[in-house]
C-alpha cells in the first residue's frame, strides 16, 4: 500500500484553489468546501469505482454530497478527475450553466441534487438497497455535515440503514465542528458522536479527515463489518488550508474581492497570511 501521498496532497491543493476562485463575484460556501476537500480527493482517487467514462455504469459506486453547500470542493474534484474542463468553473453562478451553490444532476458526476439538509442519507440508502436486490457491486457513499446531524431525518434513516443491514453504505461525517453560524457543541452537542452512531448499528471509525494515511486505513476494507453500514467520522477544520480563516465561525459563506482571492491563493501556496477586509457574511 502506497504511503506516499504527495500527488494526493497536490491534487487537494488544486481542488482548494478551484474552490477559492469560486468564492468571488457572488461567493460560495468556502468553509465547508475546504474542510471536506481531502476526503473527496481521497475517495475519487483511491476508493470510488467511478470515472468520467463510466458515469452511467450501473455497477459504479455512488457518492452523494448531502450537505450540498460544500459543492465547490466537488466541482474542483471533478475538474481534477477530468469530469469537465476547468474553464467551465468560470460559469459559476451564471444563468447560462448549472454550477450554483448546491449540486444538481446537470453537472457531470453529480449523482443527485442536494441543499435541503437530511435528505441524501435516505436517497443513498435506496441506491444501496437496489444494489443489494440486484446483487450488483455498487456501493453508496454519502457525505453529511455535522450540523446536518441536527436533522431528525438523518437519525430516522440511520435506524433504517441498520435494520436493513446495508453494509454497502458508507456514511461520512465532515466533522468540522461548525454549523452555519456557531460551533456544533454550543448549540446541539453531538458528542459522543461515534458512540451514538455505533449505538444505531453502524461500524464506526473516527479519524483525521486531512490525513491520507488514516483515510487509507479506514477505507482499505469495506464493509468494515458484514451486515452493518459503515460510519466514518472525519474530524476536519473549517477553511482547512487557509490558516487566516481556519476555524472561523463567521467565514462559512464568503464573497471575496478579486484581490482577496489572490491573497488566499498565495496563502494556500504557503506564502503569507491573508488579512481579509470583506464583510463576514452569514446567509442563513
Amino acid at each position, binding site marked *: 500500500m502506497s504511503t506516499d501521498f504527495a500527488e494526493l496532497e497536490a491534487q487537494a491543493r488544486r481542488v482548494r484553489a478551484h474552490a477559492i476562485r469560486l468564492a468571488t463575484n457572488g461567493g460560495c460556501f468556502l468553509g465547508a468546501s475546504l474542510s471536506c476537500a481531502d476526503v473527496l480527493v481521497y475517495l475519487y482517487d483511491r476508493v470510488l469505482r467511478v470515472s468520467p467514462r463510466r458515469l452511467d455504469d450501473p455497477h459504479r459506486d455512488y457518492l452523494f454530497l448531502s450537505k450540498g453547500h460544500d459543492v465547490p470542493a466537488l466541482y474542483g474534484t471533478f475538474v481534477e478527475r477530468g469530469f469537465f474542463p476547468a474553464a467551465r468553473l468560470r460559469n459559476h453562478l451564471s444563468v447560462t450553466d448549472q454550477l450554483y451553490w448546491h449540486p444538481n444532476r446537470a453537472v457531470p458526476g453529480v449523482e443527485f441534487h442536494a441543499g435541503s439538509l437530511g435528505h441524501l442519507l435516505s436517497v443513498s440508502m435506496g441506491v444501496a438497497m437496489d444494489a443489494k436486490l440486484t446483487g450488483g457491486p455498487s456501493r453508496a457513499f454519502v457525505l453529511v455535515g455535522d450540523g446536518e446531524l441536527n436533522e431528525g*431525518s438523518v437519525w430516522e434513516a440511520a435506524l433504517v440503514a441498520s435494520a436493513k443491514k446495508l453494509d454497502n453504505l458508507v456514511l461520512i461525517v465532515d466533522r468540522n465542528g461548525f454549523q452555519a453560524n456557531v460551533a456544533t457543541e454550543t448549540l446541539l452537542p453531538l458528542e459522543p458522536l461515534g458512540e451514538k452512531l455505533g449505538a444505531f448499528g453502524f461500524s464506526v471509525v473516527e479519524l483525521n479527515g486531512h490525513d491520507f494515511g488514516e483515510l487509507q486505513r479506514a477505507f482499505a476494507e469495506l464493509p468494515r463489518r458484514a451486515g452493518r453500514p459503515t460510519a466514518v467520522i472525519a474530524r476536519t477544520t473549517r477553511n482547512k488550508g487557509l490558516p487566516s480563516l481556519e476555524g472561523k465561525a463567521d467565514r462559512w459563506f464568503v464573497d471575496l474581492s478579486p484581490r482577496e482571492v489572490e491573497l488566499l491563493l498565495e496563502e494556500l501556496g504557503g506564502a503569507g497570511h491573508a488579512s481579509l477586509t470583506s464583510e463576514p457574511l452569514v446567509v442563513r
Partner: protein
Amino acid sequence: MSETPSYQSALLDLAGRDPRVLVMTAENRAAIRDLPAKLGPRFIDVGICEQTMVGMAAGLALRGRVPVVHALATFLTLRAYEFIRTDVGIAGLPVKFVGAVPGFLSDGNGPTHQAIDDISVMRTIPGMQIVCPADDRELCACLPQVVASPAPTYVRYNATPSKLEHAPYALGRAEVLAEGTDLAVLTAGFLTPKVVDACAILRGQELDATVLNLRTLAPVDEDAICAAALACRVLVTVEDHLLIGGLYQIVTEILVRHRISVPVVPIGLPGRWFQPGRLGEVLEHEGFTPARLAERFRAFETTR
C-alpha cells in the same frame, strides 16, 4: 359485472409482470397484508419513517425501479412532503405514492388523520399526477397506467366497492356517468357513487344532471369540464377535501382561463375539519349521503 380484483392482487400482478415494481410502506399493512410473503425482498417496510421511505424510494427510482409507496395519506403527503417535493419532484422520478384513508375515509380517526388538504399540497409539485379512483375497480384499473407512466404520481387510495359501471380507464380522461342538462356535477374519488345516487334521486324529481367522474385531477380533463360548463346552466363540484386547493379551485381556474362564465357551487369542506365518527354517520352529519347531496343540489337549483 366481472369479479373485482383486490388492490394487493393488482399490485402483485404488476410486480409479476414488471421487475421494476417494488412496494414500500411505513408499516401501513392493512391493505397489503399478503405482499410481504409474496414479494419477498421487493416488499420494503421501513417502519414508521415516512421521510426515509420517500428518500429511499427516490434512490431506488434513480436505479430504475418504480416504487409504489403505500402509507396513510396525511402522513405521507404532509410528514414527508418536503421529501416528495425535493427528492422525487425536483428529479421527476417515477415514484408512485398511494395515500390510504384520504378524505372521509379516515372516519373515526379525527383531524390528525384527515387528509383533506392532500390534493392541495400535492398539486403544487410540478409534474405530479393526482389520481382519485371512484371505487375498488377504478383503483385496480388505474394502477397499470400509473405504474407505466414515467411521472411521479399520487393516488388517493379508495377500495370501496360500488355498483358503478365504468368506461375503460384512461389516465387524464373523465368519464360521463350520467347525462342531463339542468346541472353538471363534477366529482372524483370516494364520493362519486354518492353523487351518482344523488342525481338518480333528482331524476325522479325531473331534474336531469350530468355526472362527470374526473378520475384524475392532474392532469385534469379540461375539455370535459368546459363541455359540461357549456352544456349545462350550472356546475356543482363535490369533494371530500377543503375548498382551498382542491377540485373546486381546479375547476374554477380552468373556467376562468377559458373565459366561461357559469355559476359553480362548491360542496366540500369549507375551512374546517370534519366531525369524526362512523363513516355513515359522518356522511350524514356533513351532508354527503345521496339523499343529503340531492337536497343540496336541489336547494341551489330552486333558489338561483
